[in-house]
């Protein structure tokens, strides 16, 4: 297959501690005194990836593994430090929904603006205008300034424009982390369609289930290098199995750039004690410690569990059961999230999210853990392939006499 994207020996170095932005005054005073010693951080090192024409490739890896840097170099937003990245054809980078949107302009004006930013000509936009408007469902608000749009309308409009670009290469980064479930489904469907239209797609998402759905092939980036590259199912399984520190308790370094952040997570019993071997027939809980550095009204928290295939079996936000948040004030908090015994035995990965509405402030995949079978579970039951295993009551007896589970037992006895 002919390649459409190719990187050869790609590396990107960032200088930490160097004055990247300062004032003129500092710059003049610094002359002659010598620059501060800079520390190098290689965000990418010797990355060699080849993507064929019309291929859809998922990019996975932990925070800081270099996914965004790689996308930015492929999209030519920034230069590599070593090596070369090549692309064939027009590239549309959807690194954010609504790049360049301006609140003072109307929906119509923003469609043309955003279209031009994504590389569409005015004629392209005009030709697809009705489609874009219909996809976003904002017909009545076309001449309303964007600042009066609800956040849902804003997102729909933003993705609608992006969904109608017709480049050879589409780069999608986490745009699905926003919006409601129905909207996310539509976006995902559209991205799959782009793949079927023989466009080359590179897709980054923390939602491994979505990655598996859109991309037959997955590249796993770890610490700036390619750790594995191959069929989606296989790579996702080994990523979930080994990419994270083993549980059941993890702490994270403070990151002063984040307005709020998750600082620790541990797997505990409902009583709050550390749990080494959680069982599928007993409830278990996640104890999450988080830090709020800036007063954030409406702050929300979510806990996500991925199963081995990358499916989100649990995705529960605090606001799902409680309409208003009580932890928007600065400070350190602890949440105890109890998961009822409804999951089958197997391997899971815990992730946690802090944000507000559609905005993500901190998201981390925390650790994988093994949920052990119940004491009475037979081998055949454990091996069965299922997503949930709630306590289910069976009542079997002769017709008309199955009044309860006991019926069978008494018939036996």
């Amino acid at each position: 297959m002919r390649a459409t994207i190719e990187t050869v020996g790609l590396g990107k170095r960032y200088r930490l501690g160097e004055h990247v932005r300062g004032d003129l005054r500092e710059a003049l005073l610094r002359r002659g005194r010598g620059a501060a010693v800079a520390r190098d951080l290689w965000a990418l090192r010797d990355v060699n990836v080849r993507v064929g024409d019309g291929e859809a490739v998922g990019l996975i890896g932990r925070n800081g593994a270099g996914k965004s840097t790689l996308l930015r170099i492929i999209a030519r937003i920034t230069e590599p430090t070593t090596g070369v990245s090549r692309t064939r054809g027009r590239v549309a980078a959807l690194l954010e929904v609504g790049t360049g949107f301006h609140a003072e302009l109307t929906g119509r004006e923003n469609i043309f603006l955003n279209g031009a930013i994504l590389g569409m000509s005015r004629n392209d936009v005009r030709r697809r205008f009705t489609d874009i408007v219909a996809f976003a469902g904002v017909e009545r608000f076309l001449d309303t300034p964007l600042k009066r749009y609800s956040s849902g309308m804003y997102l729909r409009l933003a993705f609608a424009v992006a969904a109608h670009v017709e480049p050879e290469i589409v780069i999608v980064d986490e745009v699905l982390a926003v919006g409601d479930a129905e909207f996310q489904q539509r976006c995902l469907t559209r991205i799959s369609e782009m793949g079927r239209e023989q466009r080359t797609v590179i897709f980054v998402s923390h939602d491994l289930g979505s990655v598996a759905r859109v991309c037959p092939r997955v590249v796993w980036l770890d610490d700036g290098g390619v750790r594995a590259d191959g069929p989606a199912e296989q790579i996702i399984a080994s990523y979930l199995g080994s990419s994270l520190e083993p549980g059941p308790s993890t702490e994270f370094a403070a990151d002063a750039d984040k307005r709020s952040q998750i600082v620790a997570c541990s797997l505990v019993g409902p009583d709050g004690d550390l749990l080494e071997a959680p069982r599928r027939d007993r409830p278990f809980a996640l104890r999450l410690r988080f830090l709020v550095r800036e007063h954030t009204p409406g702050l929300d928290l979510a806990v996500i569990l991925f199963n081995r295939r990358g499916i989100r079996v649990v995705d529960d936000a605090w606001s799902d059961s409680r309409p208003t948040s009580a932890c928007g004030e600065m400070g350190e908090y602890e949440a105890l999230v109890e998961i009822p015994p409804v999951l089958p035995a197997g391997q899971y990965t815990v992730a946690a999210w802090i944000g507000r509405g559609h905005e993500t402030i901190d998201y981390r995949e925390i650790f994988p853990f093994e949920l052990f079978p119940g004491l009475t579970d037979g081998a055949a039951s454990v091996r069965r392939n299922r997503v949930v295993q709630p306590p289910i009551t069976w009542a079997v007896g002769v017709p008309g006499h199955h009044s309860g589970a006991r019926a069978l037992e008494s018939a036996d006895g």
Partner: protein
Amino acid sequence: MSAASSAPMRDPDAAIRPWVENRPSEGFFPGLNVGELWAFRELAYVLAIRDIKIRYKQALFGFGWAVLQPLIAVAIFSFVFGHVTHVPTQGIPYPVFVYSGLAVWFFFSAGVNAAAQSLVGNAALVTKTYFPRILAPLASILPASIDLAISLAIVTVFMVGYSVEPTAALALLPVWIVGLFVLTLGFGVWVSALNVRYRDVRYVLGFLVQTLLYASPVVFPSVLIEGAWRYAYALNPVVGVIDGFRWSLVGGSSPHASDIVSFAVMLVVLVSGLVYFRRVERRFADVI
């Protein structure tokens, strides 16, 4: 039926597109890719239109402000320098004289100030999308053309009012307008790139632009500077453009040999600006 599903399939047999490379840039001046700039011309146009729309949507009086502002400046200058100080203007009525200089000045100062913010103010574009970065200062200057058009219209009204007749030199007006654009672009390219690196550039810039107003022949004619000093004075590149523009539009003293110095400095500013910009732009997305 979702609109998206009607998207045309890409033709797999389409001609093989050439590789576009992204590699570490080398050399003193990475050059300008003019063909690519041309391919992105619609983006420049859309960004300029956006800036114009935002400007008039936010302003209280909208378009009226763009007319009122220069009129107030002319009234003040005419009173101070025409009426109180009696600056000699070779027979041109002072309001006509000063307005012909201010027209250039307004374009220059609006253009340079907009260019200074063009990269920093569009940080989301710079960090999330690719386009030739030079397009940002270039597009940011275009909305100032509206001010220039308004100024030209008002000068025309003034000329009719004061019975000042245009001369054959009017035919050269487009030359000076191109010169004005080159001048503004030269400074704009410099300050847009410097502002990414140094946060305080825009404060310094506000002061410098204001100072340059009085160092340029806006409120007085450059013939007041005599002998060899005139050549030194022309090191200020704004001098040549204002002299030429005013001469073409309302008459007065014809361009002086020293104007060559102004145009030479202007080109030096532009070329050095382009070199500096291209050398530092590789880091914009990492630094902004």
